[in-house]
């Protein structure tokens, strides 16, 4: 079968074999291929000489440059720490008021805080810190546990209902489910609670229920929420007389809250974030409130 033929298009001979119509030209390997191979091999050899490369029993060639990825990482971490050392020291030493007054330090807080917040907090509190049902907004004026920077830092450290020895503890009892109040009473106290936030419309429509609810409230709720429902940041009991709602202010949700109770969980960050990072976050959250709407990422 070995019949060499000349390919009319290229003028080259075939190698003389034919497989079901396929032939191959008897052409040398083009020289650029050899050059290319030589260059790639040269590159490799140079690299082997300079870098750790070939195993030798239980050790390996270290390379002339003495590079090793572990030492490189250690070095880079040290450099990064060096770069951050200045502001780290100042933020750690200063108290909250001083830092808030220092525009240069606050720029650092905004930069570092946004990545910290995005990576650790935004999953629950939203990318802009506006929260959602069950997860408090951190940019409004309503605070469950107090809005002073020290209180916020403490909330971060110990969490709420978290597995931390010092955790903040809070629970809204399940008045209906645990049969402390009957449905009727819950409806009445719910109407009263809603009237605290929207005095005009609610009081007008259900004045009777609101009056009855007020008494039930004084007996059952005031201990935690305060006489006028203004809240108590020691018990994490929200202010019911403002327009901010954690779970929602519509009749249905308020009823559910009172009937089934509530117990929010906020993780404790003491063992996950360094003290400095928690401090930056507390400052960042307070600062977030002053950002114009569109600027919050």
């Amino acid at each position: 079968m070995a019949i060499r033929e000349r390919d009319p298009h290229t003028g080259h001979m075939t190698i003389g074999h034919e497989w079901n119509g396929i032939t191959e030209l008897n052409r040398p390997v083009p020289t650029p291929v050899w050059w290319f191979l030589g260059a790639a091999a040269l590159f490799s050899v140079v690299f082997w000489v300079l870098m750790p490369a070939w195993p030798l029993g239980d050790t390996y060639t270290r390379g002339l440059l003495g590079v090793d990825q572990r030492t490189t990482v250690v070095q880079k971490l040290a450099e990064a720490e060096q770069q951050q050392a200045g502001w780290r020291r100042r933020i750690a030493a200063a108290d909250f008021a001083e830092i808030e007054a220092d525009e240069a330090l606050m720029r650092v807080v905004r930069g570092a805080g946004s990545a910290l917040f995005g990576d650790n907090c935004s999953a629950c509190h939203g990318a802009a810190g506006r929260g959602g049902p069950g997860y408090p907004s951190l940019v409004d004026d309503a605070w469950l546990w107090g809005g002073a920077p020290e209180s916020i830092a403490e909330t971060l450290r110990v969490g709420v209902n978290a597995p931390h020895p010092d955790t903040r503890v809070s629970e809204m009892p399940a008045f209906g489910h645990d049969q402390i109040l009957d449905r009727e009473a819950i409806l009445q106290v719910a109407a009263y609670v809603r009237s605290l936030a929207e005095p005009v419309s609610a009081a007008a429509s259900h004045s009777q229920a609101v009056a009855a609810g007020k008494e039930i409230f004084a007996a059952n709720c005031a201990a935690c929420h305060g006489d006028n429902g203004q809240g108590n940041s020691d018990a994490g009991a929200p202010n019911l007389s403002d327009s901010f709602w954690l779970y929602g202010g519509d009749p249905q949700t308020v009823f559910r809250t009172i009937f089934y109770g509530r117990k929010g969980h906020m993780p404790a960050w003491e063992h996950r974030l360094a003290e400095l990072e928690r401090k930056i976050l507390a400052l960042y959250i307070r600062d977030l409130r002053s950002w114009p709407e569109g600027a919050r990422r």
Partner: protein
Amino acid sequence: MVAQLTQFERRLALIIAGLMALCGLVLAAFGHRDPIGVHGLIILAAAIGTMFVVISGSFADVPDDSHLGRYYDDPIKVGVVLAMGWAVFAMAVGDWVAWLLAYPEMTFDAAWSGFGRLRPMHTTGIIFGFGGNALIATSFHVMQRTSRARMPDQLSPWFVLLGYNLFCILAVTGYPMGITQSKEYAEPEWYADIWLVIVWVVYLALYLRTLARRQEPHIYVANWYYLAFILVVAVLHIVNNLAMPIALASAKSFPIFAGVQDAMTQWWYGHNAVAFFLTAGFLGMMYYYLPTRSGRPIFSYRLSIISFWGITFFYMWAGSHHLHYTALPHWVQTLGMTFSAMLLVPSWASAGNALLTLNGAWHKVRDDATLRFMMVAAVFYGLSTFEGSFMAIRPVNSLSHYTDWTVAHVHAGALGWVALITFGAIYALVPILWKRQGMYSSALVEVHFWLALAGTLVYVFAMWNSGLVQGLMWRTYSASGTLAYSFVESLVAMHPYYIARAVGGLLFLSGAVVGCINIWMTARHAPGTAQDAVRDRPLVILASRSLEPGE
């Protein structure tokens, strides 16, 4: 299909199916508290179905010797159909996964529909279901044609093809139930792995036996590539899947390697799966269908030989580039990186050999979408290997690793190279198999080509952008030395690219559906060739050589 089998083969088929039914029954009985029980039932059903087909076909007359003067093409037809079926299924799952990444809440809160279970359904379905069936089918065609010899028996090609598809089904049905070894591209558990070993050994034997019967003095280079694919995949598969099942009635097993050894074994496997499954096999395909379709001699015989040995040798060492900057010792990474750089030479030599073969046939490339599929595939092969060698350089990898850049590279290779060369080969093959003058509609081939090309480009550019944006966001520092972006912000930035990718995937998928319709219509309705191409016959001297049953 049974009518072609000899009496001996029919009996053997029954025995094999019976043994499998027994295995299935045992697994189903002892594993009824475990997901393995479901797989036992699937095996049992497949075996009983096979027995039923064999028995009902056994009443047909035993074939006389005249069929030995023709190639055995029935399993190839079924393989092509299976490949297209898997393509549509697995690409649909791929596109689903793509939308899921853009809209992560799309899981209906069910375990089976989570990203982690759907993703391997896509990768296994597409690589093994689509790619594997295409490779098996075309290899049966190529080995017979280039040897001018019929396969030695009628049973083993069916065993290989159907057994292999059973493996794929076990794999893909396992993931939604949570069965996985958690090794990428090697997810199926121990019993499926053992089954694949058996199938693969029969495949290798079938290939070698056909070559041994060849009527040509030399073995054509396409066969070298197919053989490398079969042989190396066998070695990779066995070593990477060495594992101890926790019990014989349980699907769960643990690998015998641990820690960084396990990681290195996995990526030695993973990279060579790319090399010998997604590259060598498809190069074999290219070396047959490109010259036959273009009617041109191979540009250089020597170039094909040195690139074959170059690819085989260099790929083996490159796996560690998947583990840059990890616990893997630095020196292993250096070796992986330098061998990846040298690997570019034979890769480009192969792509160049293919493209230069087209010299003198460029007018055909312009007019014939089938040949154009293969031409563009060779271009994407060159492109993705360049990209791969570039990404293997450690500092480049520090940017690309963990990002969508890798996914862009994968799909430049997978869509642009693997899928396009396969579609080209299938369009060349289908008219031959069904003895038609050509495809039912060459306009539809053209439509498929443009959908596929557009889909690939949209997909790859979207992921390149997304990968770079992601990689750069992760390493941007503010003036005070802290990270400038949170991870969520990089996710938000990727969202539009994810939508673009999913749209590109949809284009690619619709192209494949058009292809299926066209193949169906060709098999059913296209005008047949008048003369049964005399050249498409094995060279046998019937009288002097009668076959033993089961030889």
